[in-house]
């Protein structure tokens, strides 16, 4: 890239992030509580973000800028963790569509998806855990004329709704190693059932999916066998979540600083003070952005780095949210207060796939010496 093009690219990044920040601090900040507690699904915000270009910097067509995608997600998550999570769901679904062989998916649908004119998430939590040997693969596919028949139940999948779609995976005839990655459309064939009330982040449009002989047409198949694609997507899938963590932590620091003038004299007796957390967050962000420069890297030590940075993000979010609540005291404990909302958002960052324990299991596995059988 020439110096001039580089300057233009940096300016474009800055202006995108400014626009995202305006959306986040403006219309999004105004409805955060509604999203968090009342289940408002902020598609209007996602549409605005999509039109601004914030849902697609990581796509090949936009230069595969994963760092910018993470920063945009962080800017949104700083105001609302649930919306940041929806961005992640949307971005990951974009990755699947991009890899689909069919142009109806990788061109047409991806174009509307990238702009936030159509919406879809990811149902790969269960498959990621299944491939790691943590739980059973929930969906099973059987070859059928013109495609497959898919059956099974997925307990909670976010950023889906009637008329939307998501990336999903099934095991063909239940056989390990024979997985299929496909686009699951909610066009009436699949049953969506509302989930029980969550303690927060209610506006993520999270449903239980039931498939009874869902007909999967061949043109909606993204990859079969799925494993090679999953191994390519795995690192960016996990790394993008750094945006959620960074945003939640920054929001927590904001809450600490907000009360600093009034309560600094007593808050200085707390650990994890805003300056400490900011230094740790900055180091974390730098590391995540550095890893984001090489999302296609397949070296095991790169994956180890991605897993570790993801675990680091969860730990930082948990500590920062706890500390922000302690910094604000009773004020932060109000049901509409940001600090206690962020405690729940941080808990979500720590448990959403891959959860801390899942990350540690995978890291231990990667670091165990391989010997002949």
């Amino acid at each position, binding site marked *: 890239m020439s110096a001039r093009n580089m300057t233009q690219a940096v300016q474009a990044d800055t202006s995108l992030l400014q626009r995202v920040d305006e959306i986040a601090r403006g219309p999004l900040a105004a409805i955060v509580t509604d999203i968090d507690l009342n289940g408002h699904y902020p598609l209007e915000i996602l549409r605005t973000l999509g039109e601004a270009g914030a849902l697609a910097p990581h796509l090949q067509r936009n230069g595969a800028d994963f760092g910018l995608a993470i920063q945009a997600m962080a800017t949104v998550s700083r105001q609302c963790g649930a919306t940041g999570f929806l961005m992640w769901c949307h971005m990951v679904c974009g990755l699947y569509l991009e890899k689909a062989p069919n142009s109806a998916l990788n061109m047409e649908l991806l174009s509307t998806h990238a702009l936030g004119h159509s919406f879809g998430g990811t149902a790969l939590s269960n498959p990621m855990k299944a491939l790691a040997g943590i739980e059973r693969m929930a969906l099973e596919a059987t070859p059928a004329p013109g495609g497959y028949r898919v059956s099974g139940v997925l307990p909670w999948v976010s950023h889906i709704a009637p008329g939307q779609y998501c990336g999903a995976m099934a095991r063909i005839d239940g056989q390990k190693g024979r997985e299929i990655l496909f686009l699951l459309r909610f066009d009436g064939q699949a049953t969506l059932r509302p989930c029980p009330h969550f303690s927060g982040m209610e506006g993520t449009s999270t449903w239980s999916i039931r498939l009874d002989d869902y007909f999967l047409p061949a043109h909606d198949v993204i990859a079969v066998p799925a494993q090679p694609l999953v191994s390519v997507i795995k690192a960016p899938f996990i790394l993008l979540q750094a945006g959620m963590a960074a945003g939640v932590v920054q929001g927590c620091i904001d809450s600490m600083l907000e009360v600093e003038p009034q309560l600094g004299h007593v808050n200085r*007796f707390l650990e994890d003070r805003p300056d400490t957390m900011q230094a740790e967050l900055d180091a974390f962000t730098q590391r995540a952005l550095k890893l984001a420069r090489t999302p296609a890297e397949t070296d095991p030590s790169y994956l180890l*780095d991605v897993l570790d940075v993801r675990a680091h993000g969860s730990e930082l979010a948990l500590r920062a949210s706890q500390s922000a609540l302690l910094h604000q005291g009773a004020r932060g404990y109000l049901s509409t207060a940001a600090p206690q909302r962020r405690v729940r958002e941080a808990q979500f960052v720590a448990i959403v796939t891959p959860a801390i324990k899942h990350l540690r299991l995978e890291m231990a596995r990667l670091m165990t010496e391989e*010997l002949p059988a």
Partner: protein
Amino acid sequence: MIPYRKFICRVCGWIYDEALGDADGGLPPGTRFDDIPDDWACPLCGVTKADFEPYVLPAAAVTAGTTPDISVTARSVWDAVIVGGGTAGWAVAERLRALSPSARIALVTGCAGDLYAKPQLSVALSRNLDATSLCQGQGADTAAGMGITLMGGTFASGIDPHAHRLRTTRGTLRYGALVLAQGAQPVRVPSLPADLVWRVNSLSAWLRLRRSIGDTPRRIVLVGAGLVGCELAEDAATAGHTVTLIGRGPYPLDGLVPPAAGRRLGARLEHAGIHVMNDTFVHNVTKPERTVGVNVVTSGHPALCEADIVIAAIGLETNLHLAHTAGLDTDNGIVVEPATLRTSQTDIYALGDCISIHGQPCRYIGPIAAQADTIAHEILGLRHAGYAHQPPKVRLKSRVAPLELTGTPDPAAPWEVVTDTTERLVMQQRRGSATTARLEVS
């Protein structure tokens, strides 16, 4: 226009900003405090405006120096965290405990932390050693006896040097000082795949190899004719196995010793029944059936070595992943300051096989005790003379050709023969009148 002001609720600390007003309380933006009706209530705690006072932003409440440095107390949960449960890790633990009965010490290791002497592994087959005779102490027992916390089966995944935190697969530890004693790992190359080729760099790996060899004579191929390769080859041959030793150089220990010594060693190994293949490169290793096939190119010609067991001993390298998460300076190991063994980050030290001093790794047991002692003194703030690195004496544990190398051999400098009889070969390198290296093969 008078600038907008802010008022703070004395009861709950909520701030009324005239610019923003309180929409929920019926006060549009721009409503002056004086214009607020008396029946208006604080949206947070319900008190009236009488309980508000002008809010003046205090000067920065937090100033350096007056803030208690909580992070120091928080990070001192462990006075020392040691990564690695091999000889180096235990040596530091032992020195720390000897110098400080009260220091809180944790040792993090991916293995069980059992104690053993690694050099014994390359002579264990012929001496018929087993788990019981090789293991000098269970990790858990040793830790309990020493009063330290052992985290076995735990892998360190990342370091946050500013926060003094070590992330592991069993949780994050806050440390006062961190010691990296992670060792080195066998070099991996695609031509020697890990699922077919053994590497012996730990007691557990050796025990698994031992189990795989079983109790009948086997065809064993050793790839790598360095010190460990030669030792393992002789050990296996002495134990009754059919052994092939494959080396890339023109003779064993190429690069370490001069041709006269290497050829003498090669001849003695051949005499002991080992098939020594010099100038040989492994193309790949396959296992179509029960037998493992080692496809080689020997002196330019392709050949196939069939084996039951293939062992690679082609060298060690430091895994720099953890060091890089902390941003430590590295070259072919973790760079340490030679006198203190401190890395490029405050409060992080390193020793043993994972470090490099003046750009050179030194992967021998010899220097570890002195290194551990230096680090223990450094961590505890005790005076010490400073670590002075001495190249250790290198010995080839061989019955057929015991070899000893002392001093600092220079691969580029010539060797001169001191003694050359059928029983004994002595050679040396000199700079001026001083002998800089000496080699003896008997």
